[in-house]
C-alpha cells in the first residue's frame, strides 16, 4: 500500500514537475533539456498581453477575496439570529451556488448580465430622453468578480459557520454579565474568535478565483484573466513562455495554499490545546 501511495504521488506531481523543469530550459525547442535559463520568464513578463492578464487576475482575485470574506462572515453571523426556516433557505441557496457546475454559472451569468446591460442602458436612455443607449458597464472585471463572489462567499459561509459552532455560550453570557452590549461582545469576543476562519476563507477565495477558468471564460469579455489567456495561448501552440507563465501561476497558488495550511495547522493545534 505504501508503494501504491508513492506511485499515486508520482502520478500527481510528475506532470507539474515537467512543466517547471522545462520553464527553466534554455532551448526554444520544447522537447530537449539543454541548460538553465531564466530567459523565458523575462520574455513572458515582458509580454503586455500576459501582464495585462496577470494584473486582471490579481485584481479580480483580491476583490473577490475581500468581498467574499466580508459577505460570507456577515451571512454566517446573521444566520445565527434568524428563524430556522430563513436559515435553511439561505444556507440551501448558497449550497446550490456551490453545487451548480461552473459552466452553468458561467453561461447563466453571461445571459443575465447581457440582458441587464442592454436593459439598463435602454432604460436609462429612455428616462433621460437620449436617442441612443449608453454604455453603463460591460463585461470585464466587475462581472467576473460578481460571478466568482458567489461560490467563494458560499465557501466562506461554511467555514465561518464551522468556527461559530465552537463559540462557547458561556463567553457570551460572561460578557453580558460584565455589562458589555451585544455590539461590544460581537466586536471584542466573537470577531477575534472567527478572524482566523475569515482569513482562511479569504485566502481560499483568492486561490480559487485566481485559478478559476470556465466562469471567467464566459464573462470576462475582451479582458481575459490569466487562465483564459493561457487557454487561448495553448490552442495557438506550446511555447517555453507558456511553461514560464504556468510555473509562475503554480508557485503563486502553492504559496497561498501553504499559508492556508499553516494557519489551519496553527488553529488545530490551539484547538487541541484548549480542549486538553
Amino acid at each position, binding site marked *: 500500500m505504501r508503494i501504491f*501511495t508513492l506511485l499515486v504521488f508520482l*502520478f500527481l506531481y510528475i506532470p*507539474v514537475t515537467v512543466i517547471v523543469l522545462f520553464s527553466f530550459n534554455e532551448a526554444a525547442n520544447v522537447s530537449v533539456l539543454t541548460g538553465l535559463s531564466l530567459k523565458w520568464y523575462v520574455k513572458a513578463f515582458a509580454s503586455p498581453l500576459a501582464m495585462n492578464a496577470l494584473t486582471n487576475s490579481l485584481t479580480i482575485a483580491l476583490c473577490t477575496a475581500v468581498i467574499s470574506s466580508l459577505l460570507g462572515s456577515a*451571512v454566517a453571523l446573521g444566520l445565527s439570529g*434568524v428563524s430556522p426556516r430563513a436559515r435553511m433557505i439561505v444556507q440551501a441557496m448558497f449550497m*446550490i451556488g456551490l453545487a451548480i457546475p461552473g459552466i*452553468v454559472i458561467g453561461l447563466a451569468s453571461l*445571459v443575465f448580465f447581457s440582458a441587464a446591460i442592454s436593459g439598463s442602458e435602454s432604460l436609462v436612455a429612455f428616462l433621460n430622453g437620449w436617442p441612443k443607449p449608453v454604455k453603463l458597464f460591460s463585461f470585464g472585471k466587475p462581472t467576473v468578480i460578481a460571478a466568482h463572489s458567489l461560490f467563494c462567499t458560499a465557501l466562506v459561509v461554511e467555514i465561518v459557520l464551522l468556527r461559530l459552532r465552537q463559540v462557547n455560550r458561556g463567553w457570551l453570557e460572561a460578557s453580558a454579565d460584565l455589562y458589555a452590549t451585544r455590539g461590544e461582545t460581537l466586536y471584542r469576543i466573537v470577531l477575534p474568535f472567527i478572524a482566523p476562519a475569515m482569513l482562511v476563507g479569504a485566502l481560499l477565495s483568492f486561490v480559487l478565483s485566481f*485559478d478559476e477558468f470556465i466562469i471567467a471564460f464566459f464573462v470576462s469579455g475582451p479582458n481575459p484573466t490569466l487562465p483564459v489567456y493561457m487557454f487561448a495561448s495553448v490552442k495557438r501552440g506550446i511555447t517555453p513562455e507558456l511553461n514560464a507563465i504556468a510555473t509562475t501561476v503554480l508557485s503563486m497558488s502553492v504559496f497561498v495554499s501553504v499559508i492556508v495550511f499553516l494557519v489551519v495547522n496553527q488553529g488545530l493545534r490551539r484547538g487541541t490545546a484548549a480542549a486538553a
Partner: protein
Amino acid sequence: MPILSTKAARWMLLPGCALLAITLVGPLLTTLVFSLGERAANGGYQPALTLTNFIDIATRSSAYLSTLKLAGLGAAACALVGMPVAYFIAKRLTGPWRFIMLFLVVLPFFTSFVARTYAWYFILGGRGLPALLDWMGFGRFRLLNSEPAVFAGVVYAYLPIMILTLFIAFDRVGNDLIEASYDLGRGRIETVFSVVLPLALPGIISGYTLVFMLLSGEYLIPMLLGGGKVYFIGNAIVDLFLQSRNWPLGSAIAITLVLMLTLAATLSQIAQRATTHADRAD
C-alpha cells in the same frame, strides 16, 4: 443568548441575499426564460414561448452519452485509485504525517487547473511521451486527441478531491471496530473488506457522486486533450454560446445538465441512506 438580535441578523443577511439575487437567482431564471425562446436571426435570443429547444437537444445526444460514459468511468477510476491511498493516510499513518500527506494530496487541487491540464497536453503532445517512446524504439504513437488522453486528464484532475472525501469516509470508521475484528481472528485484508468498506460505503458513494458531478460539467479537459473528438455537454454549451450563438438551445442544454445532476445527487442521497449502518451513525 444569540450573538445578534433578530433585527441586526436580518441586516447582516441583506448583502449576502443581494449577491444571491444578482449571481444565482437572476442568472438561473434568465437561463430558464432563454431556454423557452428562439434564436435571433443574427444569433442571441429572441423572446418566444416554445419547447422546440428541448426537442432539439436530441441532436446533441452524443455529447450526453460521452459525458455520462467518461464521467461515470472517470469517477470510478478515481475511486479505485484513491481508496488505497485514502485508507493508507487515514489508518496507517499517525501524528503530523497524516495532515501533511493529506495536504500534499489536496495541494494540486488548489493549483491552476489550466496549468495542470496543460501539463498533460504538453506530456502527451507530439514532442512529449510519444517522442520518448519513439526514441526508446516502441514506434510512433498518437496519444493526444483521444478518449484515453481525456480519461487520463480527468483522473489526474479529480483524484485529489476523491482522496480527500475518501479519507473522511475511512477516518470515520472507528479504530475500535478494526481492533475488534483483529481480536476475533480476522486478517488485515479480510477486515478491510468485511468491516471497513461496508462502514465507509456511504462516504465512498458521496465521493463518487461529487467527482461524477464535477466531471459532468467539464469543458477544458475534453477540449484540450480530446481535441474536438471527445465532446462533452460542456463543449456543446460553449459551442452554442460562443460559436453558433444559439443561446436558447445552449440554455436548454444547461437546464437539462442541472436537472441531470440534481437526479444524480438525489439517487446518491438515497443510496447513502440505504447503506448507512444506523447503530454506528455519529
